[in-house]
C-alpha cells in the first residue's frame, strides 16, 4: 500500500492493484468498502468529479437545466435513442436516454431513495408463470432466501428508515431506523387507499429519520429528487460507503477518470483499465481483477468497446447478450390539486406506498405487477412545477389561468407515481452508436427501447387505482394521460444478466463474467427481472453478496 501526506491511498498505474472498480455508485461504493476492508488494494475510477455534501445546492437551474450532476463535466457525451432497431437513433436536447449522475457516489447521490426489497417470486417468476412468448423472461440463478441476509446487511450498513408492510417478504432483521414523519401526501394516499379497500404501508427510504453512525437526520429541506443531500442524511454511497473505504488507507477514489477500454492479455484475462482524465490525457491502471459497476448503460458500453481478436463481439459477450434485455421499470404519474395545502415540496419524496398489486394476477389479463406511491415528483421545486403545468398541453400553457394554476397548485398539488415491471426484450438494448461519438472519440451510448404492451397495460391499471384514490379523497383538477412509451430511464437494468448458463447470461450467480475469469460485473445490469421499481436496494444487496464471494475466491487465489 502506498500512502500520501493526507493519509489517503495513491497507487501508481503501472503496478497492479488487487481490484480496479469502474464506477463509485450504489454498487461500486459497496464493493470498494467491502473489499478494502477485507485487506485488498482498490482503485475506483469515477468519471464524475468528487463533489462533497457542501458542493450541493438548491439550484434548480443548474441541476435540471444545465445537468450539473447528470452531464459530463469535461466533454460532450451525447446519447442517442430510437424505439426500434429499424429506426436511425437520434440525439435530442433535454434529458439523456440513460439518465444517471456523474459524480462520486453515482446515482445514489441524486436518487429519491425508495428502498424496496424484491419478493421471493421476483426471482422465480418464469417458473411460476411459464414462458411469455417473444421475451427473455427468466428465473434468477439465486433465490430471495439467498439474498435476504444481504438485504438486511445493506439496510443496516447504509441506513434505511421504514416499517414492514402487510405483504412484505420475510426479513431477518427489523429496519434500523423508524419511519420518516408522514407527509400530507402520505396521509391522503393512506386515506384514499383504505377507502377503496387497499392496504397502504410505510415507504422504506434510505434517508435518516434519526442520527445514525455519525450522520444527522433529514432536515426536510425538500430538495431530494435529482439533488445531492447537503446534510449527508440521504444514504448515498458518497455519505456512507466511500468514506469508510478511504479510511482503510487501501482505497483510492480517482475522480474525473473516464474509462474507455479494458485491455486483455494473451490468456484472455483483463490486465489493465485505460481511461482519460479531465484534460483528455491517457492513463492506464493495472489490476489483478476488474469489477465493472458503471451502471446498466455504461457497463455494456465499455464491454462492447473492449473488443479484441480474442473477444471480437466485445468483452464477456460470447452469449451476445451484453447490452440486451434493457429494463427500466414502467412509470406513469397522475396529478391533482387538493382544497387545502399539502406543501408536498417540503421533506422527502415518498412517505406511504401501496403494494397491493405487486404480485402478478392472471385475472388482469396481462403480465405484471407494480406499486403506487404519493409524491410531488418534480413538482417539489418551483421551476419544474411551473414547467409541469405548462406542459399539460401542447403548445405550452400561458396567461392568466396558467399563472393561477401554477401559483395555487404549488402547495395544493397531490401527485402519485406508478412503478411497474418491464419485460426483458432483446430488442430493448444498449449498443454503440455507429454515427455519434463523444468528445473523446468513444462511440455514443445508443438506447433502443419500446415498452412491452403488458408494461403499459399494467401502468394504466395502476393509474385507474390512483384516480379512484384521488376521487375518494376529494381531489380536484385530476390530470391524467394514458401510460406513455418511455424515452429515458433512470433505472438501467438487465444488460449483463446473471445466470448459470454461459449461453444465456453474461455473469454467473456470483457476478463473475462467464468468459473472463478476473472480470466481475455488478450493478443494475446484473438483474434478471425488473422487480416492481426501486431497484437500488437490490443492487446493493447483490453488491454485498458479490463482495463476500469475491473476497473468498481472491483469498484462495482463484481469480
Amino acid at each position, binding site marked *: 500500500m502506498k500512502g500520501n501526506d493526507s493519509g489517503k491511498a495513491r497507487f501508481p498505474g503501472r503496478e497492479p492493484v488487487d481490484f480496479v472498480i469502474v464506477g463509485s455508485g450504489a454498487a461500486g461504493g459497496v464493493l470498494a468498502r467491502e473489499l478494502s476492508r477485507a485487506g485488498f488494494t482498490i482503485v475506483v475510477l469515477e468519471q464524475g468529479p468528487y463533489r462533497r455534501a457542501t458542493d450541493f445546492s438548491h439550484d434548480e437551474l443548474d441541476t435540471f437545466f444545465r445537468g450539473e450532476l447528470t452531464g459530463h463535466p469535461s466533454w460532450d457525451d451525447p446519447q442517442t435513442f430510437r424505439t426500434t432497431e429499424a429506426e436511425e437513433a437520434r440525439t435530442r436536447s433535454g434529458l439523456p436516454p440513460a439518465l444517471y449522475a456523474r459524480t462520486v457516489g453515482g446515482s445514489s447521490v441524486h436518487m429519491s431513495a425508495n428502498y424496496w426489497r424484491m419478493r421471493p417470486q421476483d426471482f422465480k417468476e418464469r417458473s411460476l408463470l411459464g414462458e411469455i412468448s417473444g421475451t427473455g423472461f427468466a428465473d434468477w440463478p439465486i433465490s430471495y432466501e439467498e439474498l435476504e441476509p444481504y438485504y438486511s446487511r445493506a439496510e443496516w450498513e447504509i441506513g434505511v428508515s421504514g416499517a414492514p408492510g402487510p405483504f412484505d417478504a420475510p426479513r431477518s432483521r427489523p429496519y434500523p431506523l423508524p419511519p420518516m*414523519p408522514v407527509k400530507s401526501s402520505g396521509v391522503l394516499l393512506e386515506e384514499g387507499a383504505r377507502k377503496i379497500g387497499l392496504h397502504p404501508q410505510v415507504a422504506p427510504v434510505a434517508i435518516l429519520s434519526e442520527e445514525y453512525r455519525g450522520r444527522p437526520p433529514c*432536515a*426536510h*429541506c425538500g430538495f431530494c429528487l435529482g439533488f445531492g443531500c447537503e446534510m449527508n442524511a440521504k444514504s448515498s454511497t458518497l455519505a456512507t460507503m466511500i468514506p469508510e473505504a478511504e479510511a482503510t488507507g487501501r482505497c483510492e477514489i480517482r475522480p474525473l477518470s473516464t474509462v474507455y477500454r479494458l485491455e486483455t492479455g494473451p490468456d484472455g484475462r483483463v490486465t489493465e483499465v485505460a481511461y482519460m482524465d479531465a484534460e483528455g490525457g491517457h492513463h492506464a491502471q493495472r489490476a489483478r481483477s476488474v469489477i465493472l459497476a458503471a451502471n446498466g448503460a455504461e457497463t455494456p458500453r465499455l464491454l462492447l468497446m473492449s473488443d479484441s481478436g480474442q473477444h471480437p463481439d466485445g468483452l464477456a459477450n460470447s452469449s451476445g447478450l451484453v447490452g440486451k434485455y434493457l429494463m427500466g421499470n414502467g412509470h406513469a404519474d397522475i396529478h391533482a390539486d387538493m382544497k387545502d395545502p*399539502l*406543501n408536498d415540496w417540503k*421533506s422527502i419524496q415518498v412517505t406511504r406506498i401501496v403494494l397491493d398489486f405487486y404480485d402478478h394476477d392472471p385475472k388482469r389479463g396481462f403480465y405484471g405487477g407494480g406499486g403506487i406511491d404519493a409524491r410531488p415528483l418534480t413538482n417539489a421545486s418551483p421551476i419544474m412545477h411551473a414547467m409541469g403545468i405548462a406542459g399539460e398541453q401542447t*403548445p405550452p400553457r*400561458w396567461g392568466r389561468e396558467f399563472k393561477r394554476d401554477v*401559483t395555487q397548485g404549488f402547495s395544493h398539488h397531490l401527485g402519485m407515481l406508478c412503478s411497474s415491471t418491464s419485460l426483458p426484450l432483446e430488442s430493448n438494448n444498449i449498443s454503440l452508436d455507429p454515427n455519434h461519438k463523444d468528445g473523446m472519440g468513444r462511440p455514443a451510448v445508443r438506447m433502443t427501447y419500446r415498452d412491452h404492451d403488458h408494461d403499459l397495460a399494467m401502468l394504466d391499471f395502476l393509474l385507474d387505482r390512483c384516480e379512484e384514490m384521488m376521487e375518494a379523497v376529494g381531489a380536484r383538477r385530476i390530470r391524467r394521460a394514458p401510460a406513455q412509451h418511455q424515452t429515458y430511464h433512470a433505472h438501467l437494468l438487465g444488460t449483463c444478466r446473471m445466470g448459470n448458463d454461459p449461453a444465456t447470461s453474461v455473469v454467473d450467480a456470483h457476478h463473475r463474467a462467464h468468459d473472463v475469469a478476473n472480470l466481475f460485473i455488478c450493478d443494475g445490469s446484473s438483474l434478471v427481472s425488473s422487480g416492481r421499481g426501486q431497484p437500488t436496494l437490490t443492487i446493493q444487496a447483490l453488491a454485498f453478496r458479490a463482495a463476500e464471494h469475491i473476497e473468498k475466491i481472491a483469498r484462495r487465489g482463484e481469480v
Partner: protein
Amino acid sequence: MASTGDWQVLKPSEVVELEALADQIWPGDDTPGASALGAVRFMDAALGGFMADALPLVQSGVRDLQNRSRALNPSVSGLSQLSSSQQYEVIVAVEQTPFFSTVHTMVLLGVFALPKYSGNRDQGGWTQLGFESRHWWHPPFGYYDARHAGERNERE
C-alpha cells in the same frame, strides 16, 4: 419599468418586445408579472452566457413578432404597442414555434430560478407560489398531516 439600465446582449427595442411577451405568458395581476420580476433581465444574462446559442433564435423571433404586429396595426412598432387582446392574437399565432417555447422556458426560469441569475426579483416569484427557500422544516408540513397528527393525539 425593468427596461432601464445597461443590457448585456439585448437591444432596448428587443427588451420592450420581450417584456410584453413575458407579461402575456406570466401576467401581472394582484401580484407582479414576469417583467417586473426581472424575467427579461434573466434572459439578457442567460443569452449573454450559458444560453448564448439561443440568441439568434430569440432575435429573429422578436423581429417576426414586430412584423406580425405591424401587419395587424401599421401604426405600431411592435408587440409592446398593441392592445392586450391584439397581443394575444399575435402570440397565439406563434405559440407553436421554437422561439415561443424558448422564451416560455426562459420566462419561467426568470420568474423562479435563484435570484443570482438576475430574475426572481426579491424572490417575488417564490412568494407567488408560497415557496420559501430554507434548509430545514419540521412536521407538520401541510394541512392533512397536521389534521392526521391531531386525530392521533385525540385518540391517545
